[in-house]
């Protein structure tokens, strides 16, 4: 290090200016626990463990890119999207107000498909088989326990609500002589649809129906080219609520990856939100060919497995289309949908492993009281140091001021965030910075008591205190580095703050205090008394 007094002062001044300007430019980033916001950890959802490590890792890279695009477009200031480990992603959104919407935006797969709506007639022959498979898979008792009334004819009363009364349980009735076959767990839940290619299922029956449909035996028993999809909305008919179940062609003729652009707008005619989209060349040609062949048929727009809308094909449709949102949607939902469609679909489902949100008011309270406490604490240190060490105490306080600006500047320069535990780290390092000064001053006093000349005493004091300061700082630094390695989130913040604090305290005690002492001693003779 620079030895001349001028050089020392210059170095300190440069470092302080550098720190303060970095602090001014970058501001001190506050952790979500202090500032408010949302922190979530997502993992690739793979309950069966079918994905190889490599596949997961590749997927998570893709996921990271897509989520980043979505969030950037959503417009959050200073978001963090970071891959951790092999298959996890951390998303941090400071100051977010509507966490439900943000979560939806991140987690939504946004897998868009266009599928042909088939006639319910195509499913009819398979219904008996489906029922039998469910009973075989789950056993009679659990089937009975699941449904409120699983006997086919039980729905007749309700079915009359729908005029033609053609309950799909009819097919079960045909085999009424077979007692065991009367158990129709699935078909008994189905009512005639209000729409081409749909059934209706009462909302309270939807969970049971979903359990049945999730059975592998059920999936195998479906006709090969047919798949069932739920409508994404609940509809009300005559005081009851239902969800539509669509019978769709299994293969999608166009998918979301052929999308070029999507924009949310309000339909001028019905004042309902909608998303208009534009397909790329390949998608546009396929769409045009397909719709030309299917004029008069219905096409389902399926988002993440649920049918968003199912318009009729009036004419050949080119590269542009519209997704009409239901009456209950608002324009923000349409905007979010357009956004996730533009950003692209996630290649895999994500599961939230950890979620932390801190409201903005709590954050503000913490910042205010933390600042006040910090200022009072530092003032107390100033009073104690000056009261106990007089002029030397003043020198230590100046060194401490340099220390504080170095730490804050260092934190902002490294882009570290200050968290609640980080404040703990800061206090520990302030304690150590003060301690280093105390060690030196006590040593100088001892040397003075032993009768050494002032200048010798100061030199000896610094020299003797050195080993204790070095050892104490290095052991603490060891702990900080290990914490950084093992810690996550807040503990990491603690480790970073502590490390920067220790390095700064080391420098401030041994170099800055020394320099101030040299300035203090500059005008004195070797034997003049000092105030310590």
């Amino acid at each position, binding site marked *: 290090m620079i030895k001349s007094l001028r050089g020392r002062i210059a170095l300190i001044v440069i470092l302080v200016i550098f720190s303060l300007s970095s602090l001014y430019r970058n501001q001190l980033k506050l952790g979500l626990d202090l500032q408010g916001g949302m922190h979530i950890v997502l993992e690739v959802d793979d309950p069966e463990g079918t994905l190889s490590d490599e596949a997961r890792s590749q997927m998570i890279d893709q996921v990271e890119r897509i989520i980043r695009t979505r969030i950037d477009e959503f417009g959050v200031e200073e978001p963090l999207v970071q891959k951790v480990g092999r298959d996890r992603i951390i998303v941090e959104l400071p100051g977010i107000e509507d966490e439900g919407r943000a979560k939806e935006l991140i987690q939504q797969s946004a897998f868009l498909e266009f599928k042909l709506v088939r006639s319910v007639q195509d499913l009819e022959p398979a219904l008996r088989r489906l029922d039998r498979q469910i009973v075989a898979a789950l056993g009679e008792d659990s089937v009975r326990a699941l449904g409120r009334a699983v006997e086919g004819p039980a729905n007749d009363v309700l079915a009359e609500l729908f005029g033609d009364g053609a309950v799909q349980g009819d097919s079960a009735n045909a085999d009424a002589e077979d007692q065991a076959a009367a158990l129709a767990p699935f078909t008994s839940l189905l009512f005639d649809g209000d729409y081409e290619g749909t059934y209706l299922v009462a909302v309270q029956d939807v969970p049971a129906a979903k359990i049945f449909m999730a059975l592998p035996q059920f999936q195998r028993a479906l006709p090969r080219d047919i798949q069932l999809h739920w409508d994404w909305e609940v509809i009300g008919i005559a005081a009851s609520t239902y969800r539509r179940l669509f019978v769709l062609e299994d293969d999608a003729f166009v998918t979301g990856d052929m999308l070029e652009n999507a924009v949310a707008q309000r339909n001028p005619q019905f004042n309902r939100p909608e998303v208009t989209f534009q397909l790329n060349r390949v998608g546009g040609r396929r769409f045009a060919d397909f719709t030309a062949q299917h004029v008069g048929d219905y096409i389902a727009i399926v988002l993440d497995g649920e049918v968003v809308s199912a318009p009729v094909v009036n004419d050949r449709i080119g590269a542009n289309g519209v997704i009409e949102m239901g009456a209950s949607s608002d324009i923000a939902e349409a905007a979010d949908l357009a956004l996730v469609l533009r950003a692209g679909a996630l290649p895999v489902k994500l*599961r939230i*492993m950890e*979620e932390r*949100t801190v409201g903005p008011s709590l954050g503000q309270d*913490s910042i205010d009281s933390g600042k006040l406490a910090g200022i009072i604490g530092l003032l107390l240190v100033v009073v104690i140091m000056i009261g106990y060490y007089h002029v030397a105490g003043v020198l230590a306080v100046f060194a401490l001021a340099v220390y504080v600006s170095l730490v804050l500047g260092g934190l902002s320069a490294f882009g570290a965030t200050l968290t609640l535990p980080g404040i703990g780290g800061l206090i*520990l390092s302030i*304690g150590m910075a003060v301690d280093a000064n105390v060690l030196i001053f006590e040593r100088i006093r001892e040397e003075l008591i032993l009768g050494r000349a002032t200048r010798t005493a100061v030199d000896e004091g610094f020299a003797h205190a050195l*080993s204790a300061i070095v050892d104490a700082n290095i052991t603490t630094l060891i702990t900080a580095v290990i914490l950084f390695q093992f810690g996550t989130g807040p*503990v990491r913040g603690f480790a970073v703050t502590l490390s920067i604090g220790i390095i700064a305290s080391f420098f401030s005690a041994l170099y800055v205090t020394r320099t101030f002492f040299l300035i203090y001693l500059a005008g004195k003779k070797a034997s003049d008394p000092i105030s310590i």
Partner: protein
Amino acid sequence: MRFFDQAKYPFIEKRRATYMLSAIVIAVGMAFMIYNVFSIGSWQNYGVDFTGGSFIQVRFDQPTTAAQLRAALGGPDAPPITSFGDQNEFVIRAELTDEEVSVVADGVRRQLEAAFGTGVFEIVRQESVGPTIGAELQQKAALAMLFSFTLTLIYLAIRFEFRFGVAAVIATIHDILITLGFLAAFRMEIALPTVAAILTIVGYSLNDTIVVFDRVRENLLAKGGRRQDPSELVNRSINQTLPRTVLTSTTTLAVLLSLFFVGGAVIRDFTVVLILGVVIGTYSSIFVASPALLEIQARFGDSSQSADRKKRRRSATAA
């Protein structure tokens, strides 16, 4: 002004008494931990960070009681509700029932909205941690402690002597045990910041211990240091560093106390642990680490002395 100038307190002489004190405090803490195992099922009141679960902090605009909240959340089936800080603020701790961690917290929010209406309360903090993450955090925290112990031991063994490292680790374990006992006694919630607080204590205590040991080392290396009575030498070292020990502890406590009184409710638990740690850390560097150094020496001999003894023995046989 100088406190404890030329102090000559017989710290080492009194070590039996302080051993007893430490033993009693640790035993009481252990008793609380065992009591906790039987009454709440684990040594400590682990927070959602380690067990997995949902922590939901709600602030109401209007006077609300915990009983009202309990009624809104399913009466006798309601998850545990405790009040927090100000009057109309509560913490609800719910177990996770689903794989998706946010389901429970969303459910609680809906139930509260149904009972109290929207706009009268704010969920100021919500933390949901899946059980896998919780288990991982627990493992990582334990590993971090283990590694920092080992590396500290190695560093001190190199810079001082092996016995200094062992004595420092003993003092650190002593501090951690007392802190854990304290946490268990008051059933303070163990969260990630608590781990950081415990590690801060470890850092502080080590710092304090090293300053005393540094003086011991210096006195040992001084002319004739090895020939002095070890306990007298250690006692002198403690007394010599006493002014520094007291002053440093005072300033650190001053900062912590200001944080405790004006730092706000969020940081208060954290600060309490740190204050306790500073007191214990100061105590242990004088009454645990230094005597431990002597005990190790008395039982196993210090390395230089045993070398001396060997030399003497060898010369004896030669004669």
